[in-house]
């Protein structure tokens, strides 16, 4: 494992701090779900994870949060290349959360329970209200503060969860199919907000998505996952790789894909097939 390269200067972020998965794997009930995952994510970079159903995409996120046990290491290196002594701060936006229709939980209750110790059943205090309002303002959702989770739209709910994931500001933001079931306008608004947050807070973002072209449009980098990382590169390169047709049963032509965004991304991996090589066999 080498150190992350110095910032190219072209990235909006410092680009020098780095979240690393080293020999990361998940084994559950004697079954190997993920193995040999090596991934370096630089801050300010959005990495999209694509793969077929059952590839282990959600499992990868759950293992990173600590909800599932994993092998290997998860490390966070600061800009001076020293390992942070504090645990990695992770923001997580879940896949569509089922909210019971009779649930009286409000957006404010949700935030107050996460941010404060003062028990929510006695009513959130002024400090928690203030922090909630600030967080909601980040995603333009202040009017939702006193609404029940059960009565707002899925798109609004996902923006609320995004706001929650941003307090306190995380080092790594995990988005698990965050716009599944969200309408078009809601999807656009969600991704606009994510893009803004990425530059504003210098976040590393890991996005799991089924929508390959939508993911390609927002991502700096894409990995094709199926038990391990099959292919890793810029979104255009990955989607034009023959492995895509092998995996999904359909491929893309260059005209179908959004133009490449941003400059080339420096990678520090060795010994892994790079996307451009194209010679890969599954």
């Amino acid at each position: 494992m080498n150190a992350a390269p110095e910032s190219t200067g072209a990235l909006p972020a410092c680009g020098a701090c780095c979240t690393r998965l080293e020999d990361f794997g998940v084994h559950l009930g004697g079954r190997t779900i993920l193995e040999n995952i090596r991934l370096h994510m630089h801050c300010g970079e959005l990495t999209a994870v694509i793969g077929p159903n059952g590839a282990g995409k959600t499992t990868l996120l759950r293992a990173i949060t600590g909800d599932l046990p994993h092998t290997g290491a998860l490390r966070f290196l600061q800009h001076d290349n020293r390992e942070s002594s504090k645990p990695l701060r992770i923001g997580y936006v879940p896949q569509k959360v089922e909210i019971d229709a009779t649930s009286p939980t409000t957006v404010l209750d949700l935030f107050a329970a996460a941010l404060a110790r003062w028990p929510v059943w006695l009513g959130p205090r002024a400090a928690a209200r203030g922090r909630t309002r600030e967080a909601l303002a980040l995603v333009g959702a202040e009017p939702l503060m006193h609404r029940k989770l059960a009565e707002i739209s899925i798109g609004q709910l996902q923006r609320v969860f995004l706001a929650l994931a941003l307090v306190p500001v995380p080092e790594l933001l995990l988005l698990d199919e965050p716009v599944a079931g969200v309408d078009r306008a809601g999807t656009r608004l969600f991704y606009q907000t994510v893009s803004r947050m990425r530059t504003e807070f210098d976040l590393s973002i890991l996005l799991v998505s089924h929508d390959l072209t939508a993911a390609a449009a927002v991502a700096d980098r894409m990995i094709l996952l199926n038990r391990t990382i099959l292919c890793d590169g810029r979104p255009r390169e990955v989607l034009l790789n023959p492995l895509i047709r092998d995996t999904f049963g359909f491929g893309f032509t260059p005209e179908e894909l959004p133009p490449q965004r941003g400059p080339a991304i420096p990678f520090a991996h060795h010994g892994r097939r790079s996307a451009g090589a194209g010679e890969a066999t599954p």
Partner: protein
Amino acid sequence: MMPLWSTLVSGLPFEWAQYAFMQNALLAVLLVTPLLALLGCLVINHQMAFLSEAIGHSTLTGLALGVLLGLREPLAAVIGFAALLGILVVLLRRHSAVSSDTAIALMMACTVSLGVVLLSRGGGFARYSRYLIGDILTISPAEIASLAALLALVLAVWLRWFNPLFFVHLNRTLAASRGLGVKRMEASFTVIVAVVVAVAMPWVGLLVINAMLILPAAAARNLAGNTRQYTLLAVTLGMASGLLGLLTSYYGNTATGATIALWASGFFALSMLLRRR
């Protein structure tokens, strides 16, 4: 404490207020109903209504084991067994392919039948039927003190750990990402429910204890606009059902636990009507 309470209550201009057993029962009801209602709010949030029912029924087996072991006070066995069962279901839910309601139904069937078989050896089950319907009218001051201590304990936990207990029900991965010990929270909550149900069971009655846990919170859910209202309404409705149930059971000469549960059902029906509007 007790003399003060009985002076206070006997000052009320009612016939029932003069009897020591009613004074005791009144205090016990005002302790046990808020206790169950508080817990009920989170039980529903965690979608554990069926699990708490199973825990309630398992208290019968705990009782049987306690009797079998020759304990004079089988309460320890009841609490221990209920807690064990709770943990077992949490583990089963997590580690097996059996759906959780099937797992719970299986457990409940096994424990109830085992309990009945053990207690009915020699044809003596009638002796234990008081546990099925509860007999709050026989509660002693010492037993009231144990209910008060339990309420104080639950309030202390609710002041310090309510938020994490509340947060984990939304989404476990989300909770884990914020550094909460999801398994620890799930297990602790189940144990708290088991202990409270086991302690309250002899007074409220095994058949209706789950009603007292679930109904006030379910009714409050129909009316509340946020978590604070939800909790306070559930406690209020629980205590109101308790008070009304105790008095109507006194005048109607009916089983107190079930009468309380009927009042709670009435409040629930009312809340449904109010919700529609």
